């Protein structure tokens, strides 16, 4: 069953992307242009999008496309909550123990979770609740990050000394291609296309560095802290030029007054005019 699903996605990925518009028009008998179809579907809740994916291959492909997913995420509500650490039964040599999956990172509606006993990593899609177990990374992995790259999503694992967090190496997993973890040479990566940049956070901006939050602000890396009901942040606008935003940006979050508990949560993603909070309490 799963194999068929994979085949379909692969088949659709293989088709060239340039024919989107024309072919959909041909398929949709009623001459609705691609962009209108795109707009209509972007209003739909995920449940009906999933149904719509079965309508035809072009619909499937459009809904799976990153540009559509991002548009749909932007159209969703202002504040989203993510609930619960999930407990699952794990069979260890015939004994059933309970394993808790804790959230490690949230990106583009996906949650990266790690089991506390098996140390297995998995990705969960909040809206569809689909869960994808990842192949095991390097045994000394201490941290995995999700990041977007050339239209898809990749995962990067850092391994090395778990206590000092000294990085000995990197592995990369390409989610689109049923991949295995591949080691990357550090710091210069394959094909010379990917490079690492060192940037230093300007001094004296945050009183307590251990409480500084790291997140994505309109596609750029940002650091910030929550003081009272305000989020103060500084954005790395151009990582190549070491260009930071000139002043701290202050975002008033007045709703925190009514929901003080939210302060303990982490604002993970700031996209255009929306702030996303993810909560692991039962909201």
């Amino acid at each position: 069953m799963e194999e068929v699903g994979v085949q379909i996605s692969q088949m659709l990925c293989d088709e060239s992307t340039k024919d989107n518009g024309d072919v959909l028009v041909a398929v949709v008998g009623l001459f609705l242009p691609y962009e209108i179809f795109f707009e209509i579907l972007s209003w739909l809740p995920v449940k009906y999008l999933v149904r719509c994916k079965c309508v035809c291959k072009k619909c499937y492909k459009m809904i799976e496309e990153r540009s559509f997913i991002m548009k749909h995420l932007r159209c969703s509500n202002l504040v989203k909550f993510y609930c619960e650490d999930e407990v699952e039964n794990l069979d260890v040599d015939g004994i059933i123990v309970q394993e808790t999956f804790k959230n490690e990172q949230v990106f583009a509606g996906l949650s990266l979770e790690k089991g506390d006993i098996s140390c297995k990593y998995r990705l969960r899609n909040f809206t569809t609740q689909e869960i994808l177990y990842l192949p095991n990374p390097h045994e000394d992995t201490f941290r995995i990050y999700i990041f977007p790259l050339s239209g898809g999503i990749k995962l990067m694992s850092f391994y090395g000394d778990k206590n000092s967090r000294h990085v000995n190496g990197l592995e990369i997993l390409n989610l689109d291609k049923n991949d295995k973890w591949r080691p990357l040479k550090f710091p210069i990566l394959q094909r010379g296309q990917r490079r690492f940049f060192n940037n230093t956070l300007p001094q004296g901006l945050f009183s307590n560095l251990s409480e500084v939050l790291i997140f994505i602000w309109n596609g750029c890396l940002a650091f910030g802290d929550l003081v009272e009901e305000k989020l103060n942040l500084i954005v790395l606008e151009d990582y190549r030029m070491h260009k930071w935003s000139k002043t701290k940006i202050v975002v008033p979050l007045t709703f925190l007054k009514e929901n003080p508990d939210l302060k303990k949560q982490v604002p993970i993603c700031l996209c255009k005019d929306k702030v996303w909070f993810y909560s692991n309490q039962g909201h």
Partner: protein
Amino acid sequence: MSTAATADASSSGDTTEGSVRLLTLQSEDGEVFEVKETIATQSVTIKGMVDDDCATSTIPVCNVTGRTLAMVIEWWNKHEIGAVSNEKELKEWESQFDTIDDKSDRDDVYDLLMAANYLNIPTLLDCCTSAVAEAIKGKSTDEMREFFDIKSDFDEKEEDALRKENQWAFEN
């Protein structure tokens, strides 16, 4: 626009009523409408023409029938910027899109969508796309196919697999 058309319509196109200029729009099937410039410029396409001084003669609105264009103009009138629009009346007029039950309702909305897209009227486009989305909510995959006139190109096995993958979405 061809120069012949410009010369031909120059007498009728550039009329004024008080201080408000009237624009002449001609639908695909030849119907002619006179619309206040302040209203018609809700269309980004027409606004562009006015700004570029290309709206002095009859503006042909290709691909849009007289019937649909009349609906678009009704929309413009009700959404005129600065006009004191009657909330209730506006809601009532918009509510005609709430129920897209039969093929003729659907075709009307599709025609409006195409016109809103061609004339680039973001508010009308939003209204129509969300109305269609509302109409799709609650429909099964087969009903969606019927609604969009799409034939499935999945084989049975593929579709079964897709459904099983997301069983939850197919329960009511």
